[in-house]
């Protein structure tokens, strides 16, 4: 079955036709060409598909396409507004929080959501917030440092 939905992605409004059983991840990647959310497990475990939906981090692989009607979606592509990197993106670069990069878009969205909700998280709170973003390369060390750096500077998403 087909549904007409409209959604805003990184500030751009889209009116599109989606299939009932497709996921938001499929819509973003295959219909809108937004490829930063990745297919990692498609089961809500790895977080590589994390996007912000109405400001909250969710696994886009577990959102049905029609459920995204009326939603405001943010992905990594939208983090650098006006050509300037988001403080988290800068911090990820400076702290070498990126290795293979496949988990990075999901990590950035979870990190942004965390700081939006809790501008000065403890290390425990950061680790808890990232449980749903698996990384096999970094050991999470620099990712946590980057978030602490941005939090410490008082800059938020």
């Amino acid at each position: 079955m087909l549904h007409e939905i409209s959604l805003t992605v990184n500030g751009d409004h889209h009116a599109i036709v989606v299939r009932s059983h497709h996921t938001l991840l499929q819509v973003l990647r295959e219909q809108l060409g937004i490829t930063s959310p990745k297919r990692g497990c498609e089961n809500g475990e790895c977080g590589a598909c994390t996007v912000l939906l109405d400001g909250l981090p969710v696994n886009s692989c577990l959102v049905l396409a029609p459920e995204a009607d009326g939603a405001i979606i943010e992905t990594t592509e939208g983090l650098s507004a006006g050509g300037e990197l988001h403080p988290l993106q800068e911090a990820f670069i400076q702290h070498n929080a990126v290795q293979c990069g496949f988990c990075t878009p999901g990590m950035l969205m979870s990190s942004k959501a965390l700081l939006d909700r809790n501008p000065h998280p403890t290390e425990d709170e950061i680790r808890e917030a990232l449980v749903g973003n698996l990384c096999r390369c970094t050991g999470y060390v620099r990712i946590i440092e980057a978030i602490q750096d941005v939090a410490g500077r008082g800059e938020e998403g």
Partner: protein
Amino acid sequence: MHPYDYCKPTSLGEAFQHLTSPGKVVAVVAGATDLIPRVRDGVFHPDLVVDVKGLPRLRDLTVQAGTGSLFVGAAIRMNELARSELVRSHWSVLADAAASMGNEQVRNRATIGGNICTASPAADTAPALYVLEGLVQIAGPGGERQLPVADFITGPRKTALRLGEIVIGLVLPRPPDGTVGAFEKLSRRQAGDLSIVSVAALAIPEAARPSWRLALGAVSPTPLRAAESEAILAGDLSDEAIDRAAAAAYGCCCPISDIRAGQEYRQAMVINLTRRVVRAIISRMPADPPCC
């Protein structure tokens, strides 16, 4: 994945019609965090999913005037429970349980209605709902009814829902002031994992000594109250009594060996987690409780 249709009714009547469509496999979807993996696994092939997030009352999180009970709409999400000051005010054991589930992303979608309707023996919110003696508000073509949550979950992944019925929400009576609760969940990893054993308990102030409610998860076909343990704790809170209560908890459940843990370990953890939860509550009870 087999294709399926989607609808989002705005009235209960509309919902009932979809749910009773003849010849169709129809499922309710709220958070989709159970549905989509099950369809992907090939264990479930719906023809139609009915999104209940647009129905009245399902997104309510309110205190009922008069009774002071908390109404939690079925489509309230885990993180909304975990982070709600209202829920934490008198029903914090539920907030703790919700916070232990899955990961941040899943908790932003998974709902309490989905959790109890999936009715996994390891359902994270169930032990808390059992000790809070929650009532499940059900609506169907034949009208509305309420069931104690312990009667709602009837077996592993089985509920008392009849064809066409949906869960509107949960009614959680307000525990008396001074009630202390605790929840512990043991899993293979520190977070982001299904439960091996979980224990929720409340100590409720009474005239003479507190009464106790204790519920176990992941160690029986359904979550269950450990009635014998409760009786022991109501009479005595010495170390020896706590041991007896833990032994009684061990006695009342029947853990199995599965992919997450073996039976022997689960049995030992029922004992140790029960003791931990009871001690945690005792340590937070008011200074002059009658505790001997």
